[in-house]
């Protein structure tokens, strides 16, 4: 058991690897072309509902709130249910904002793995394909109504020790993200009600 955990930790720690092979594995369309077809996500606010199924817990963790894609480097995650919490995803890691995300007095998770995941998350939500291609092999499926499904598998063998697959679905906007972990845990994120920000939630400095 301990050995398994150690392998897991190794993966957690230094599991990032660039992989150019990702481009070769693209399915029907190019990822950049897909993002180009979508509405620009910078400055957009949308609602989320997240359901996490963790095997060690007897019930799923459900949360709701809004996401604000501030700029290409900052995504603010404002959870309102079951309790209020604001987080900012930046290339430096996941920072917890104390009041709003303006201040610098944020604490959070900045270990190497958190930094990597934060970057991947920004890449997913801001539509920066180059950020995503670093971490995953991508397969795209499109249908005639303009919606699409994207499945991503970690390219690094160690990273793939934690995350089995991530699937994304959307049309004009990203609508759903599902993260399947090797341990059997999974997370479903649903996004809705996309609208332009009125500078309600400025980004971190």
């Amino acid at each position, binding site marked *: 058991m301990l050995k398994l955990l150690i392998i897991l930790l190794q993966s957690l720690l230094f599991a990032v690897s660039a992989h150019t092979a990702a481009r070769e594995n693209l399915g029907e369309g190019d990822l950049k072309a897909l993002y180009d077809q979508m509405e620009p996500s910078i400055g957009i606010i949308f609602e989320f509902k997240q359901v996490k199924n963790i095997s060690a817990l007897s019930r799923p963790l459900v949360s709701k709130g809004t996401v604000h894609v501030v700029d290409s480097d900052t995504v603010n995650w404002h959870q309102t249910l079951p309790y209020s919490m604001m987080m900012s995803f930046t290339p430096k890691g996941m920072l917890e904002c104390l009041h709003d995300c303006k201040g610098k007095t944020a604490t959070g998770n*900045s270990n190497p793995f958190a930094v990597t995941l934060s970057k991947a998350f920004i890449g997913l939500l801001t539509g920066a394909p180059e950020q995503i291609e670093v971490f995953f092999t991508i397969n795209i499926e499109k249908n005639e109504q303009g919606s699409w499904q994207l499945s991503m598998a970690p390219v690094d063998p160690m990273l793939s020790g934690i*995350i089995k697959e991530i699937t994304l679905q959307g049309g004009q906007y990203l609508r759903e993200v599902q993260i399947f972990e090797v341990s059997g845990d999974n997370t479903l994120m649903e996004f809705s009600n996309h609208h332009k920000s009125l500078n309600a939630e400025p980004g971190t400095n």
Partner: protein
Amino acid sequence: MRNRTKAFLYCLVIISLAALAFLRVDPKGPIDLNILSLLPTNERDVVVEQAAGSIAQKINRNHNYLIFSAGKETAKKSALIAAEIMKDSDLYSDIKVMFDGPESKNIGSFYFPYRYRLVDIGAADQTRDERLVQEAIKQLYSPMGGGMGALFPNDPFFLFSHFLSKNFKDNQRTFTIEDGMLIKTTSDLTYVYIQTTLRDSPFNLEIQEAVDKLKTSLLSGLNGESQTLTAGIIEHAIMGSKNAEAEIALVGGVSILGILIVILLIFRSITPVLGSLVTIILGLTVGFSLTLLIFGQVHIITLVAGGSLIGISIDYSSHFFADVFRQKNGWSPSVALDHIWQGIFLGLITSVLAFSALLIAPFPGLKQLAVFSIAGLLGAFGAVIFLLPLLTARMHVHQNPAILSHLKLWVAWWQLNNSRSLQSIVIVVSIVLMSAASVLLKSDDDVRMLQAPAPEVLADETQLKSLLNQNFGTQFILVEGATAEEVLQNEEYLIEVLSELDWPQGNQPNWLGVSSFIPSIKKQENNLKLVASLGHPKDEGVINRLAESVGLSDTVIDAFNTEIDNSSTIPLTFNSWFISPILPDIKRLWVGDTVRGKASIVLLRDGLDSNVISAITGPIDNVRYVDNVAEISQTIKTYREKAVYLLIIGYVIIAATLFRRYGASGTVSVVLPPFAAVATTAMLLVFLGEVMNLFTLVGLILVLGIGIDYTLFYREARRAKPSTMLAIFLSMSSTVLAFGLLSFSSILAIHSFGITVLIGITIAFLLAPMAGTSVSST
């Protein structure tokens, strides 16, 4: 003993000396290029010295590269090619281009079993408990908590994640690992980091040349596809050596050439030129050999400054050859020698006395300079006494040089005007100038005057440091203890005290010490005790509160309590941490065994207020704040202040020696011109905007020594003879040529030395006739 036998014996002594010196050469080579070896060593505490040496040796060999290109793939490919070229060069003991090796990967597996011992969660109270529960919940709800769920049953409060966040957030925050390489991408460029460790000291000349060649190979190997940024002490050392070589060539070459041209113009014969050349060469040979014999190496700065020895050593041959203008009817070398012998011997004694003063200073550089100069002067003196009479037996000089008439005019002016009242005026003016200069001349004792960092090297270094977020400076805190455990406990206490203050928060921590990565056993036991309290009382502990909030099963709670029990039996020992392959860079902060026990270093970030740190660390036992640059600069300041007393004592000793021979009035005539020269020079330095440092003082001591030579020659000649005037003129021109060139040096210390002697000697020359002319009572 016949002259030829004496000459033979003299040559034999020099050859033997050179041979012995050759055998004594340090394995690192005859030339010492390390700027640090100029600094005093016996002034500091032995453990501080060991710690400073330990960290300097480790840092000195670091050589960092950034390979960059517009394309990411090109940059990565180039980095691999560059690493291969570096391997082929055999210059480095370690080349690291892949950063996902076992030493990084093992960090997780190494620390995980001890996770409950690594983090101080704080004393049990409601606020702490609430904070821990809330943080765990936030982590679970976090949208990017991938993998955390799997870890959760084995670390429900995510303490290991806290440990990693706190201690492993340096390079990773600006650089990411891609394909195992550390990479940073900006809007237009991608940088790949390569860390190397030199096999040998960066001050080894062969290493410097090899690194220079390697950089050329890299340039051609990368085919212009990528470029390199480099930083490390080696870069400064290479540039320093190049500058010093250029300056030695300039000072040595131009001054020899200039002096020989002056001799040729005056004597219109090749014999004095060759004779002077022999004197210079033998002087330098003896100086170099004896310095090597005593020190094993000759420092590059000694060579640069010692190159100006040429200017003094030629004095003796100048007096010898100038005697040709005294003996109008057929010149005899032995008569010339008899005539000048006493004057140049007294001159040698006073110069040796002046240089001996430098031996008292604890600066190895100044000691070397003193040994080099004293030996060189003795060698040159021997050459004049033993060799020149043989080499110049057939010398013919045809006419008096044109300069002589001008010199005669100058001496004639002194003849007319030298009086007690004039001397009194000179004394008063000199005292006024000296007093004014001592107030107005600003002092600067910064040790960095010993080097002149090239702007291009500094620019590369600054850019690389900013890209890598490397901001630790030369200041550190030394922590001591009887055992490793005690050192760690003392370091933990120090960091606790430091953390209580409000410090600027940057991308990097404000300090870096081993205890963050290997807590003391005492600390570990305490941490574990605090974590264990989360499971108590049974069924009502903080873990139960967390379980209620998120639906944690009883199995996880039981596993947590069992794990705490297991942890209590396996502390992380210092030895097992130290011998593990992880974190080699952090282990460099461990000084190890010292005369008092064990020690470690806590590095401090650049720009932290040294006064605050000094005030905090002062009262803490076994802890000592060391600011290398400030401490050495302070030592230089102390010795500058001491050098002033040295100058006064030197004056008094020389005056007392001369008093027996010349009486009160004669002594004043001999001592006054160099004193006036020193005073005027000091004031002129104020007007020129120069700063006073230890090397200015050394220059003034030399002005005193050489200036007295001039007045002695006039005094010994009884009246100003053309030969004396010419000899002193020759001496002055050669000294000015040699030292004047030093004032163009890019190294502030050498520049200060050069410009002081240049001005001082010129004034001493102009005032010297005061000693050789009769003094009227008016």
